[in-house]
């Protein structure tokens, strides 16, 4: 430790403010984007957007996307892509729905079984990538199509012809695990707060926001765990190393194959978690679930500062990236902008958020 403090006194170092130090972390750069977007909406959107219920409203899709985005970010840091995430959401949803509805399994069996199947598929993805040396882009792209198609076929088999499998909510209603994966947490607290008139409530006296949707808790918890793993564990170091330079990492003794396969398994499991949450929440699953989510997850990760080339990025960045993306897509509905212009604004705001983040970071760190 003596060395460190000594080094700080090195005459070849300029003094560096606390803000500078903070902003240098890729984790926190993306925060600037969130702030920028928030300020924009504070001026342009209806006031209801930043009420408690408004915040929950945009945080719910952000959380679902964010769980995928953090998985995608970790995989990207590890130097690979998974384009099959979105299809995996549909496929896991089908598997889970079939387990619960068609076979009537209790959640305590259905959930681990679904995760196991997803993990096996993730491992298959990873194994093909590593064994053949093909780019993961192309391998997982194949799985994008295969899993999407399999979901359709499976749904038709499970339902006898429809593309929507229903009845999940009824099937799991009384399961003790249901509250972990769906609905709202802290409902008691919120009801109490509403009684004290500390939060908005309906005329019936019910709180407008019954609680915190569980996906938000999952999202936050996962972001914290992922950050901890990336920054504080040997495994995190291996992920950065594998993505930074596969050869160098392998030559230094990092078990690159194991790391990468684990990451593919992780993204598959993230997709499954989202699938389970959304399927229970919606009570049904259909063949289009998760459509284009792989894309959005990668977008959120890149907004959050991940490099497409691997080896650089952060889970917290993806966390904020997902929030930016969620805020912009939902937030524009709160404004009076003609919705024909929706995509124009979506694009412009994403660009503006990232530019702002970049500008702040450059100013603060004095990069040329």
């Amino acid at each position, binding site marked *: *430790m*003596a*060395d*460190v403090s000594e*080094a*700080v006194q*090195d005459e*070849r*170092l300029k003094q560096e403010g606390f803000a500078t130090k903070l902003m240098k972390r890729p984790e926190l750069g993306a925060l600037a984007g969130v702030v920028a977007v928030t300020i924009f909406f504070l001026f342009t959107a209806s006031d209801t957007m930043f009420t408690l219920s408004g915040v929950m409203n945009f945080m719910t899709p952000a959380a679902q996307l964010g769980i995928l985005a953090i998985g995608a970010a970790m995989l990207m840091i590890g130097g690979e892509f998974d384009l099959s995430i979105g299809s995996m959401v549909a496929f896991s949803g089908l598997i889970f729905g079939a387990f619960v509805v068609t076979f009537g399994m209790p959640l305590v069996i259905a959930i681990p079984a679904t995760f196991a199947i997803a993990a096996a598929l993730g491992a298959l993805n990873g194994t093909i990538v590593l064994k053949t040396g093909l780019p993961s882009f192309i391998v997982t792209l194949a799985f994008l199509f295969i899993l999407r198609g399999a979901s359709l076929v499976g749904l038709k088999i499970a339902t006898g012809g429809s593309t929507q499998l229903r009845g999940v909510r009824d099937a799991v209603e009384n399961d003790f695990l249901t509250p972990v994966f769906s609905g709202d947490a802290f409902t008691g607290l919120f009801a109490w707060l509403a009684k004290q008139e500390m939060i908005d409530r309906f005329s019936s006296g019910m709180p407008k926001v019954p609680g915190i949707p569980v996906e938000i808790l999952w999202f936050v918890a996962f972001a914290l765990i992922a950050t*901890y793993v990336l920054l*504080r*564990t*040997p495994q*995190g*170091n*291996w992920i*950065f*190393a594998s993505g*930074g*330079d596969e*050869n*160098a*990492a*392998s*030559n*230094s*003794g*990092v*078990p690159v194959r194991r790391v990468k396969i684990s990451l593919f398994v992780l993204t598959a499991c993230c997709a499954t978690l989202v699938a389970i949450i959304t399927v229970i929440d919606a009570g049904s699953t259909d063949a289009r679930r998760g459509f284009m989510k792989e894309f959005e997850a990668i977008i959120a990760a890149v907004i959050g500062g991940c490099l497409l080339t691997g*080896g*650089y990025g952060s889970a917290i960045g993806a966390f904020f990236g997902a929030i930016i993306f969620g805020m912009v897509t939902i937030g524009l509905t709160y404004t009076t902008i003609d919705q024909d212009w929706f995509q124009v604004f979506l694009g412009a705001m994403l660009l503006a958020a990232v530019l702002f983040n970049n500008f702040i970071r450059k100013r603060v760190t004095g990069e040329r």
Partner: protein
Amino acid sequence: MAGDTTFHHGAPKTDAQPIVQMRDIEKHFGNIIALAGVSFDVLAGECHCLLGDNGAGKSTFIKTMSGVHKPTKGEIFLNGKPMDFSSPRDAMEAGIATVFQDLAMIPLMSVTRNFFMGREPTKGKWLFKRMDIDKANAATMEAMREMGIKLRSPDQAVGTLSGGERQTVAIARAVYFGAKVLILDEPTSALGVRQTSNVLATIDRVRKQGVGVVFITHNVRHAMAVGDRFTVLNRGKTLGTARRGDITGNELQDLMAGGQEMAALEGSLGGTV
């Protein structure tokens, strides 16, 4: 080929069993033959210098030794037992530490993270088993200072280090973790005067601790300073092995130039290499 007659083929059959023995290693890349049958061994406590012209195959050879390449043909014995490394990690676990010519560093990662890459120190138990960052930072700064480099901060990205600083990190890392065999591929090429003498001193020190060192260099003086045996490669083949004392610096220099006559130099430059 002036060298052929003066170069005494070293007699390796001595008392000690070699730690690593390589027999008739060949390595082809597609239609390129990089190694055409090379034999080599390292004893405990010796520094075996591997010399040769650019492109002779030195790096390729030590890469087969450290598990990076699978040899196209040939056998590797570790303590007399045949070995088949499927990854550098295997070799590392078997006690072979290597400083590669390209250093095997991740430019975007910090010095500390590179230093401990693959062998991170941990603290805590079970779920709370985590990297001991403070210890790692301190150990890195200390190891670098021992080599004569005073880092500004262990958080600096390796990509922003100077060439010599980077090379020092790679050497310090290999030495830090200890090993039965230490392979150094041109470790001093980018180093300053002070750092170079530190590295040579380090080679001498670990050799005395019983580690077998494989030392690749183009600098005859460095080789003569620490080498016990000298093997010269030329165009993928070995020209033979000599023991210290059996060969002079000048003879070695001629052999290293590929057994060809030295390019004639203007008077002022002669003998400076």
